[in-house]
């Protein structure tokens, strides 16, 4: 197999094995589905261009790091649509029910809403750690930031998320009591 063939094969494998992962990650960062569709394509164009820099076994870290840069760019272009904003209209206090009793769609909406309310830096680290199950070292590598910064952002993100989730639960409890 020539170098060119090997490269093409690797790129194809990268897309097939990581497309859904990258798509979900971008979705969890707070973008609407159609934005994520385009952003993910953009992401793999970046991967094609920089394929030689992608260390085997560390594809996800590379893709997530690049995805965040793309997300940042989209935000700067002010075309970002945070699901939270969209979903806030779908979930109001009258629908505040315990998480376990929500159907999937409403559960997703609640999750995205809570994530969308986090500070952007905190949200990124929170999503990578709590949803993508990455280690703090992997996050530090992907984001190119010190481990201490990851820990700090994660701590704040968790605290903020927990407070918001508790607020939701309090509303749900209050509603059940009425």
């Amino acid at each position, binding site marked *: 197999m*020539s170098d*060119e*063939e090997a*490269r*093409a*094969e690797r*790129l*194809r494998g990268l*897309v*097939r094995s990581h*497309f*859904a992962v990258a*798509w*979900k990650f971008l*979705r*969890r960062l707070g*973008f*609407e589905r*159609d*934005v994520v*569709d*385009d*952003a*993910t*394509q*953009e992401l*793999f*164009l*970046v991967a*094609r*261009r920089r394929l030689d820099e992608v260390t085997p076994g560390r594809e996800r870290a590379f893709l997530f790091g*690049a995805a*965040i*840069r*793309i997300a940042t*760019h*989209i935000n*700067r*272009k002010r*075309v*970002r*649509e945070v699901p939270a904003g969209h979903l806030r209209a779908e979930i109001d206090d009258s629908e505040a029910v315990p*998480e376990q009793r*929500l159907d*999937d769609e409403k*559960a*997703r909406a*609640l*999750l995205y809403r809570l994530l969308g309310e986090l500070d952007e830096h905190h949200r990124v680290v929170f999503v990578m*750690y*709590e*949803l993508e*199950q990455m*280690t*703090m070292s992997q996050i530090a590598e992907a984001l190119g930031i010190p*481990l201490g910064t990851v820990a700090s952002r994660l*701590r704040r993100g*968790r605290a903020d*998320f927990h407070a918001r*989730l508790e607020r939701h639960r309090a509303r749900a409890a209050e509603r059940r009591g009425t």
Partner: protein
Amino acid sequence: MKEPKRLIHTDPGFARLVAAAQDDEPPSSQIQETLALVMRDPPPSRLSSWWWTVPCVVLVGGVVVSSMFAGQKADSALPAVAPGASTSPTMVPPAMNTVFVDDLAAAPPVPQPSPPTEPPRARSTPERHAITKAPMAVPSTTAPSAPVPSAPAPPIAAPAIPAPSSTAAERPSTFREELALVITARSTLEEHDLASCIRAVDRYDARFPSGVFAQEISVLRIEALVASGERARAVALAQQFLTRTGDSPYAERVRTLLDRAKDTR
């Protein structure tokens, strides 16, 4: 540095939310489109054509941002983005399900300013591709996860499953036709037009026995056979597929089809 316990292990409510989010997945056509986009040959130097820099349609999240006369490389339009992670104008959705097998044979070349290697369904504008390397081999792609129709179909001549991977010998000029045949096969399958679907996959296998979409075509054929009631052949092809390409991203899909074919025999 000690890592905190993850919330999904300590908070059942949070775990419930995360579980629900797991089902939020990309549409099956997205991977196919992305593969078609990234595996296609890179365009020639954009400096050679002034019109490469003119129209730049941006469509993000339903918000269309037209930026005419971009006049620059895609990367240079993103000064704040870290090297290599450059973004570019978002892509225009392709026209789906509009290519038909018979049309392909008679259709004249599609006039377009972009290089002739551009596939018809590519979602991005040419400006976004800064690649100037030599043409790349176009390997197989994507996941046609079309629903299995139930309508009967005429007997199908099913050739052997082609080799799953492509080679650099696949000339770029075949890419568009290959992709068009995949689109046709998938769209006709979704429309329960099984005869047309099989014609498309037959034609693909005849013309591109080692094509870049060989795996996708194989799966489409199996789906069409299951849908048309040719269970035995579907089972044979599915088993052959799994034997040859058991690590394929479509293996799970094929196993499901295999189970379905066996159940209904």
